Each structure stands twice: as C-alpha cells, then as structure tokens.
C-alpha cells in the first residue's frame, strides 16, 4: 500500500503553511493584491456563466482562489497560531545585492540598446561590463569579450539567426 500512498513532500515538515518571516508576510500580501488585480481585469472581460464561460471566468476564479487562500493563511497567522520568525540578520549582510543589482541592470540595458546599436557593439559592451564586474583582469576581459562576440556572431548566424545591425544598416 505504501507504494501507492507515498508521501508528497520530501520533507518531514508536512504542515500546510510554514512559519512566517517578514518577507513571507509581504509576499502573501503581494499574492492577495495580485489575485485581486486579476479578478478586476477578468471581470471586465466578461464572466459568462458556468455553463457557458466567457474569457474572464477562469482567470477570475483563479484570482479569487489565490487571494482567498493567502488571506486565510494570513488570518491564521494573525490569530497567533504560529510563530513570527525574525529573518536572520547574518544572512542579510553576506548577500551582495549590489552585484545582483548590477547584473540585472546590465541585462536590462542590453535589451534596450540591442536594436539601436546592433548586436556586435551591445554584446561587446555587455561582456566587458560583466567580465570586469566579476573581477576578471582587463586582459582577460578584453580577450574573452572579443572572442565571444566573434564566436557567437558566426555560430548563430550560421544557424540562420538574424542579429540586429543597429547603426550599421
């Protein structure tokens, strides 16, 4: 019987709702808000009926379910049934959010510049930024950037991928 009725989660912690820390609470609020947002927009699309659903019915129900479940979760927490966990301060200071932010910013910049300056320049700048940002020496940075730009350009073009020429039309 055990083969059929196997356990679901691999952890022994089978409580439906884990203990909450501050970030968890914020996320729960976020989901509630997200669910309501979805519900509002789906309602505008038209719900139809259960027997004859329209475009908005399914997202509406889903948004509602999401908000409801998270609301229940929050309520149970507020009623004091579970512990409030302080996020470990030690954890926070060791994470280098600066680096992550830098990378994310580079990614966005890449996508915005790509079609304006063309593949070659954009990729070159991006690679130099990132290689250098990861702590490589200048020589490695330039060498790797130039090599990668050439390699990717030719390999992908061989496979028929068309890169934007940007300022070189």
């Amino acid at each position, binding site marked *: 019987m055990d083969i*059929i009725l196997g356990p679901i989660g691999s*952890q022994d912690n089978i409580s*439906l709702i884990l203990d909450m820390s501050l970030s968890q609470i914020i996320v729960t609020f976020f989901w509630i808000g997200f669910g309501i947002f979805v519900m509002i927009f789906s309602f505008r699309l038209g719900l139809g009926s259960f027997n004859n659903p329209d475009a908005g019915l399914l997202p509406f129900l889903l948004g509602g379910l*999401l908000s409801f479940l998270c609301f229940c979760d929050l309520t149970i927490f507020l009623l004091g049934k579970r512990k409030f966990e302080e996020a470990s301060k030690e954890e926070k200071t060791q994470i280098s959010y600066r680096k992550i932010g830098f990378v994310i910013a580079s990614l966005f910049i890449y996508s915005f510049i790509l079609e304006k300056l063309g593949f070659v320049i954009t990729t070159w700048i991006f690679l130099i930024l990132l290689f250098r940002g*990861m*702590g490589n020496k200048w020589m490695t940075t330039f060498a790797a950037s130039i090599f990668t730009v050439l390699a990717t350009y030719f390999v992908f073009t061989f*496979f028929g991928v068309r890169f934007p020429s940007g300022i070189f039309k």
Partner: protein
Amino acid sequence: MDIFSGLLSGFQIVFKPENFLYCFIGVFIGTLIGVLPGIGPSGAMAMLLPTTFGLSPASSIIMLAGIFYGAQYGGSTTSILVNIPGEASSIVTCLDGYQMAKQGRAGPALGIAAFGSLIGGTISIIGLMFLALPLAEIAVAFGPPEYFSLISLTMVLSIYLSQGSLFKSFIMIIVGLILSTVGMDLVSGKTRFTFGCGTLIDGIGLVPVAMGLFGVSEVLVNLEESLERVIFKAKIKNLLPNREDWKKSIGPIARGTFLGFPLGILPGGGAIIASFVSYSLEKKISKTPERFGNGAIEGVAGPETANNAAAGGSFIPLLALGIPPNVVMALLMGALIIHGITPGPLMIQQHPEVFWGVVASMYIGNVMLLLLNLPLIGLWVKLLKVPYRILMPLILLFCLIGSYSLNNNVVEVIIMIIFGIAGYVLRKLEFEAAPLMVAFILGPILENSWRQSLVISSGSFFVFLEKPISLGALLLAFFIIVNALVKYYRKKKKRLIFE
C-alpha cells in the same frame, strides 16, 4: 508488405551512402540545436527545408527527422550543465540533473540521459513499426473532454514535482495557470491581460519564461555567494554512470518508455507531459523521495527516456493518419507534401520506402546520437571547470541571445529578465518554479478543452463523466488527491500524538 521485409528494405535505403550522410547531418545539427538556446528543431528544419527540395523524399525526411530527435538529446545537456532547459521537455531534467552537476556528477547525469534516450527512442520505434495503425485509432479517441481530464490528472500528479511546502506549490500552480491565460482567448477571441503589448497577443512565450525562471534566476542566486566559492565541485567523480546508478535507473527507464510512447501519440502535448508524468511517477514510487530535487538520478533517467519515447510516438499520427501532433511534425508534413507525398492512411501503402526508410533511419540515428553524445560528455564536463567568473557572463549571454533569436523580438528578452528576477525572488522565499511551469504550459490546453467540451455538450458538465476515458482519468486524479489528504491527516495525527 509485412513488417520484417519492410524493415529490411528500410535499412537498405538508410545504408545508401547519401542517406547515411543525411541521417548523420540531421542528428548532428539536431544535437547542436538542442544545446543552443532559443532555436528549436522547427526553426532549423524550416531553414534546411529548401536544401531538401532536390533530394528524394526519403532522404529529406530522414534528415529532418534526425534534427527532431537529435534535439531531444541535446536539450538535456544544457538542462544538466547550466539549469537552462533547451527544450520544454527537458525542463524537468533541470530539477535533478543540474543538482547532480553541482555535486560533480554531471558525467553520469549526461550519460544516463543519453542511454535512457537511446532506449526510449529505440523501443518507441519498435512500437511505431508494429502498432502504428491501431494506436493511431486510439489517438483520435481523445476529444476535448478526454484531454481535459488527462491534463487535470497530469496537473494533480505535478504536485509531486515539488519538495517543500504543499501550500506554496499550490500557489505556484494557480499563478502558472493565471499566467497562461495571457493572450488571445481561443473561444471568444478577446485578448486578456495584454495591456496593449503586441507580443503578448499569443501569450507569454514559453522559452523566455523557462530561461528566466530556471537559467537566469540560478545565475542570480549564485551571485550571492562570494566568488571564492566554487559553484561546481572541482573534482569530477566519474564520466559515466556507475553500477549503482544503473541499478537505480533501470526501473525509471523502463517505466519512462512505456509511459512516454503512448503519450507522444496524443496531439498537443506529448513529450512535455511525458516528462512531467515520468518525474512525478518516479518520485511517488521511490522509497526515498526526499532525494528528488537533490540529485536523484532517477529524476533524470525517467523523464529523458520518456521524452524520447514520446518523440518516437509522435511520428505515429503523422505517418499513419496524416495528422501532425505538434509543430515539428507539421513541418515534416509540409516537407512530405512538397515532395508530392500526401501523408495519410494510404502513405504506407503508396510510399513504403519513405515510411520504412524513416523508421530504419531512426534506429541508426539513435545509435549515432549515442556515439556522438558520449564522447562529448568529457568535453562538457571540462567546460564546467571554467571559473565561474568567466562562465557566468557567457551563460547570461547565451540566455539573452536565445530569447532574442526566437522571434527577433526584444520584448521577449525583457520578459525573460523579468522572470529571471521573479524566479530569484521566489527561490529566496522558498517557492518552487517547477509547478508554475507545468501549470503554465498545460494551462491553455486545460482551459481550451474545458470550454470546447462545454460548447460541444451545450453547457452540460456531465460530458466529462459520460465518456469512459475522461471518467477514468478524473477518477484517478480524484483518488490521488484523496490519498494525499488521507496521508497528510494520518501524519498530522501521529505528530500530535507525539507532542
């Protein structure tokens, strides 16, 4: 023409030097395509289609088919090495395959994926030979109500994809379903949640989401550590699976084959559903399910076998009925039509050389792929030794090019970045991406078949219970849910007793 003489003639066709070469070119390109992000087999096939105009029908299909199942082999490579799924059917491989790579076991992971793919692929070809026509009949028995129930069952099973909190996985499933509704609604034609963005009319792209949620978020997580920490264990233990690995994998491989093959026949989801179901099944059956998600080789063996078996199975509707079950098959159908062959029930009789030639080439192709991929394992493993400070920008560039090259659309790159950030945040908060992906991929089929069924039944909900296949799948899903809840309450009771 009976099967053995047919097969023999097929082999004669394949062993002609030019066909042998085309088969090799096809699987080689297919592997590369599978490894490279973004470009899928259909893109490569479309590009090579004009070059096949001058070839014989058998030759062109041999080559194009090779690209297809070759891509299935290659797709698992990037999933294992850098947590970027090369194909939707390789998403599940990321879960344990990448963990294995982190533990220095990239070699065995790649190896078992290759062998499993060979076994799954080969057995499915045997099935194709003997069972093509009867199975094709079963495929058409699946109408909207049956699809709805089947997908519901798959989604219930996908709860097993997650390790942690059940509640959070459920939230992820709901969010995945919501995200899948973005775009133009099939039934009413209204556009949902597009907010004026033309790219979203067809929905949020699968590839940008997968690359973002898995690939980019993994990079961001790795950035947290100080650079001194090595992401991949420097000591690579073996290059190939050892006996212990094989012992654990035999079961999943066998089950994956027999699960994947029939699922591949069904139009609409085949290989993807097969990989999800295989993973969930293996986890459920396992005596040590907690290893899944931490580098359990069964989590690679099962799904990889299943998706190759499904790839083989997906040829059946095309070759036997003339119905392409997915985009790639539609392309093959186009190729056949251009060569003056009409795929359909008469094709096997009218053009046996094409059918048998392709079947025989699939055997040869699978062997070629194994021979190609095994030596490459050494190469891939060496790649992982490159310091992360050099590897990381390359991985990101890989993702950027991949998402751009899909449709030359920068919006998709931005979507990928957004999902990358979201994936990172979700991971910090202990939400898992896998259930979201499953729901996201299957959502449209689920909703559309639900609404199509209601239109067909003029609004009656009983349609899902009246049809036997549909009823069966729903009962099974219900049974699984009930069991899960029972198990939960039993455990909780036990805990309370101890407290």
